[in-house]
C-alpha cells in the first residue's frame, strides 16, 4: 500500500492540476462526503494546533467554533495558543499541497503526510470559493500577521489575496477561518464526538467548542503535564522484513555490513553486529551492495537468532495509564475505571505501545453493545471500526469471563466504554485515509494482553458488585416478609407479634449466619424440581 502514497501520486503527475489531484484522491484525504468533510477540516486543524503547542512546550488550549451559514455552508474558526508561524512560512503551510516536514521520519506525531490543512484550504476554495483567513502571532512584542490565501490549482503555489499586519489580543498563536460546504450531524462520527474523544486521549489539552447549534462545550484539561517530547529513532532489527532490508542495503552509505548494521539500526553496537554476521555466516566486512538474496535471507536469520536489546522507547510517548484514566474519568461518567499501559514492543522494527482503559457502569446502557473508542497517536479514529485491529482484539477477548455478555466474534454487550490506544512512530493503517489500524499479529496480541489485564480487574469488580446486589436484594426480601411471617406466627402461637418480629429482625442484623444459601436444601429443592418435571413427563396421571 505504501508504494502508492498520495505524495507519490502527486509527484508523478506534475502536469495535472492540484484540483484534479484533489478530486481523484478526495476519499483518501477524508472528503468523501459533506459530513465527513466537516470532521476532516476540524481534525486537521486541531491535530496541527496540538502538535504545534507540544513542540513549543505549551499546554494547548484550542478554541473551535462552527457557524451554520445556511445552504450547507459552515464557517469553521480554530484558534490555538501555540508558538505561531513565522510570516514567510504561512503561505506555504496553508496554501501548498504536500508541504511539510513530518513525512518519512521515524518520530511520533499526529499529522503524518503534510497533506491535511492545505487540503482543507483547497476544499474550502473548491466548494465556496472563499479564501482561507489566517492570523498568526509569534511573540508578545510583535504585531500579528493576517493573510487571505487561495491555492493556484495549476501550479500548486500559494496565491496571496491579502497580507496585512494586525492587532491580536493573544500573546502567540494561530487562528484559521474557513468557509466550507458541509453537513452537521450529531452522533458517533460527529465533530462533537471527535473533540470529546480528543479530550480523553489528551488530558493535557483544554478544548472550548461551540457547535453549529450554538451549544458550547468546555473540555477542561485534567493534567498540567505535557507529554514527553518524542525523538527520532532508527528502525530496530527485529521484525524488519526482507523487502525493507534490501531497500536499506541499497540506499546505505556504509561500506561494510557491520557498519551498516550499527549505523542504520538502533540498539546495534559493534559486538551485536558481529554476532549477527557470525550467526548469519557472513563476513563482517562484506559490502552491503554486494549482498545477494540468499545472503539477505541469512542476515534476517542472523538477526532473529541474536539477542538484541528492546528498542529505545523514548521515541514514543504513551499517554500513561494514570493520565488516560484521568481523561476518561472527566469525559465519561461511570462508576468504575481501570487503565493499563503495556511496555513498548515492535512490529516490523517499529516500536509501539498499546494502552487501554475501561469505564464501567453509570448511565451507560447495559443492554447495548459496548462503546469502543480507538486512538492512534492520540487521534480518535471514528470511521472503519469494523476493519480495525482494535475491534478484532476486543471481539477475540472473552468478556463473558469478566461479567459481560458476548456472542461469538462480536463486541460484548454491557454498560462499558473501552478505550484502545496505539502510540507509535509510524502507526500502520489499513488505508491512506488513516481510519483503521492494520492487522499486525504483534499489535493485536499486545491489544489483547492489555484488554485481558484490564478485563480481569473489571471482572473482579463486576462480580463483587453482583454479590453485593444479591445480598441486598435478599436482605430486603427478608425485611418485607418478616412482618407477615410474624403476624401469621403470632396468630398460630398466641405469642405477641412484636416479640417475634423483633427477634427475627435482630437475627437478620447478624445476617451472615442465616442469610447463607443452604446448599443442602438447595439440592433437595433441585431434586424436588427435577422430580416434578419427571412427574409431568409421566403424563399427568395424578390429581
Amino acid at each position, binding site marked *: 500500500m505504501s508504494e502508492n502514497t498520495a505524495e507519490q501520486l502527486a509527484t508523478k503527475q506534475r502536469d495535472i492540476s492540484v484540483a484534479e489531484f484533489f478530486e481523484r484522491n478526495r476519499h483518501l484525504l477524508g472528503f468523501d462526503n459533506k459530513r465527513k468533510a466537516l470532521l476532516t477540516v476540524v481534525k486537521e486543524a486541531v491535530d496541527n494546533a496540538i502538535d504545534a503547542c507540544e513542540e513549543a512546550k505549551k499546554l494547548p488550549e484550542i478554541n473551535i467554533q462552527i457557524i451554520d451559514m445556511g445552504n450547507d455552508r459552515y464557517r469553521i474558526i480554530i484558534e490555538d495558543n501555540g508558538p505561531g508561524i513565522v510570516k514567510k512560512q504561512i503561505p506555504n503551510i496553508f496554501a501548498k499541497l504536500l508541504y511539510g516536514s513530518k513525512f518519512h521520519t521515524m518520530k511520533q506525531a499526529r499529522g503524518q503526510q503534510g497533506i491535511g490543512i492545505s487540503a482543507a484550504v483547497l476544499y474550502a476554495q473548491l466548494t465556496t470559493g472563499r479564501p482561507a483567513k489566517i492570523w498568526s502571532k509569534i511573540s508578545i512584542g510583535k504585531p500579528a500577521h493576517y493573510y487571505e490565501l487561495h491555492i493556484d490549482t495549476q501550479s500548486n503555489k500559494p496565491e496571496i489575496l491579502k497580507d496585512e499586519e494586525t492587532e491580536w489580543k493573544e500573546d502567540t498563536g494561530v487562528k484559521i477561518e474557513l468557509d466550507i460546504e458541509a453537513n452537521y450531524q450529531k452522533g458517533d462520527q460527529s465533530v462533537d464526538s471527535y473533540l470529546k474523544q480528543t479530550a480523553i486521549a489528551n488530558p493535557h489539552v483544554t478544548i472550548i467548542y461551540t457547535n453549529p447549534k450554538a451549544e458550547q462545550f468546555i473540555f477542561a484539561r485534567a493534567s498540567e503535564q505535557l507529554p514527553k517530547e518524542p525523538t527520532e529513532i532508527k528502525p530496530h532489527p527485529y521484525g524488519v522484513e526482507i523487502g525493507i532490508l534490501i531497500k536499506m542495503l541499497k540506499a546505505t552509505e556504509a561500506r561494510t555490513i557491520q557498519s551498516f548494521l550499527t549505523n542504520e539500526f538502533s540498539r546495534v553496537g559493534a559486538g551485536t553486529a558481529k554476532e549477527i554476521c557470525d550467526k548469519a555466516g557472513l563476513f563482517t566486512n562484506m559490502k552491503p551492495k554486494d549482498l545477494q538474496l540468499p545472503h539477505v535471507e541469512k542476515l534476517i536469520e542472523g538477526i532473529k537468532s541474536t539477542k538484541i536489546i528492546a528498542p529505545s522507547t523514548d521515541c514514543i510517548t504513551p499517554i500513561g495509564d494514570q493520565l488516560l484514566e484521568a481523561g476518561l474519568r472527566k469525559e465519561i461518567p461511570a462508576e468504575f475505571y481501570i487503565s493499563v499501559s503495556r511496555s513498548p514492543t515492535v512490529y516490523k522494527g517499529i516500536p509501539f505501545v498499546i494502552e487501554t482503559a475501561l469505564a464501567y457502569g453509570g448511565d451507560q446502557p447495559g443492554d447495548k453493545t459496548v462503546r469502543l473508542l480507538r486512538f492512534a497517536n492520540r487521534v480518535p479514529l471514528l470511521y472503519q471500526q469494523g476493519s480495525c485491529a482494535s475491534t478484532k482484539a476486543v471481539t477475540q477477548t472473552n468478556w463473558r469471563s469478566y461479567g459481560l455478555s458476548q456472542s461469538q466474534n462480536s463486541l460484548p454487550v454491557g454498560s462499558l466504554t473501552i478505550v484502545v490506544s496505539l502510540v507509535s512512530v509510524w502507526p500502520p493503517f489499513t488505508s491512506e485515509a488513516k481510519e483503521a489500524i492494520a492487522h499486525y499479529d504483534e499489535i493485536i496480541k499486545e491489544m489483547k494482553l492489555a484488554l485481558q489485564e484490564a478485563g480481569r480487574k473489571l471482572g473482579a469488580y463486576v462480580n463483587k458488585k453482583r454479590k453485593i446486589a444479591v445480598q441486598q*436484594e*435478599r436482605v430486603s*426480601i*427478608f425485611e*418485607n*416478609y418478616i*412482618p*407477615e*411471617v410474624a403476624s*401469621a*406466627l*403470632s*396468630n*398460630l*402461637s*398466641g*405469642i405477641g407479634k412484636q*416479640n*417475634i418480629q423483633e*427477634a*427475627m429482625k*435482630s*437475627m*437478620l442484623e447478624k445476617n451472615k449466619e*442465616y*442469610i447463607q*444459601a*443452604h446448599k*443442602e*436444601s*438447595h439440592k*433437595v*429443592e433441585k*431434586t*424436588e424440581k427435577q*422430580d*416434578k418435571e*419427571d*412427574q409431568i413427563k*409421566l*403424563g399427568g*396421571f*395424578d*390429581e
Partner: protein
Amino acid sequence: MNKKAKESLENLGKDLVKKILAKKPPILDVPIRSLSNVNYDEKTQTLQLGEKTSERNFFNVSHSKKFLQTLEVAAVSKGLIEDNKNTSLRDVFYMIKRTIPNTKTNIVDEQTESDSAIEDLEAITGLSRELLHINAKASGMVSGKVIIEDLGDSIDWSKMGSGGWAIPSNVENITFKKVDANYVLYMEKDAVWQRLHQDKFWEKNKCIIISSQGQTTRGIRRLLQRLSQEYKLPIYVLADFDPWGFYIYSVIKYGSINLAHMSNEMTLTEARFLGITAEDIENYDLKKHLIAFKEVDIKRIKQLQNYDWFKDHKGWQNQFKKMLAMKAKAEIQALSSRGLSFISEKYLPEKIKKGEYLE
C-alpha cells in the same frame, strides 16, 4: 371443634417461635411429596411417603415465600377450625392472596400455590385437608338402600329422585343409620351411573352405586373406604379399558404420589376391578367398538407395566399385554351397542355372579 387439629397447628407456630426466640433459624421440615420420596409398601400394599424431608428455612431466599405461604394457610385453617366453618380451596386462595407491603410480590399468584401449601401443611401436621376444614367442590353421585345422617338431617339414598345424593368433599361427619347392600359399585362415568340409576340397578341388585366425573375425588375415596371398613362391603370398580381407567383403579387401591401422605385414609386394598377387561371385549363382542391407540397411550401403558405394584401381578400384566397387542381401547359405553340396558341386566349381574374381576 377438633381440638387435636387446632392444637397441632398451634404447636407448629409455638415450635417456630421458640426457635426464633432462641435465635435459631426458623425451619419447617416438610416431607418431600414427589416420586423420589414415594415408595410402594409391600406389606400394606399402598404407596407410602418416605422419610425424606426438605428443610424450609425462612432465611433462605429460595424458601422464604413458600415458608410464608405455609404459615398463612395454617393461620387460615386455625381460624376455620375455631369458627367451625369449612371453606373451599378457592376461598383459601383468596383469603391469603394479597401484596406484601413495600414489594410487588403477592403471597400467592395462582391457586396451585395455595393448594400446594395446603398439601404441605397436611404432610407436616399429618392432618388431612378435611380436618383442616378445607374442602374441594362436591363431585360425585351415590344411590342405594342406605340412610345416613348429615348435620342432623336424615337422608335416604333410595329416595333421591333422578339425581342421587351429591357426595360432599368431606364425608367425615356423616353417620350411617342403615346400610342394606351386598356390595358397592363405583364407576368413573357419570353417564353410566345415570343409566344404572334409571334402571334401579341398586334396588334390583341390592347394592350401592357411586360415580365420579373422571378422577376419583378425596371425598369419594373416603366414602368408599368407610363403606368397606365399616360394613365390610366389597368394592367393585367399573372403568374404561384404557390406561386412564386402569390408573383410576390403581389410585383407589394403592394411592397416588401427591397424596401418599394420606394413603392410610384413602387407599382401598380390597378394591376389585370389574371391567372393562380384555376378556370382556372377547366375550361381549366389543371388538367393533375399539378406539385406536395413540402414541401417548402406548407410553402410558408401558409406565403402568413397570409400577412396583403391577410388576409381579400376572393378572394385570396379562391385561397390559393384551391391550398392547390390540393397540386399542374401549369405553364402558361400548356395552350400549348390545342394547341400552344390557349393562344393568346382563353384563354387571353376570360378572359379579361369576366373580370375574381383577384384584
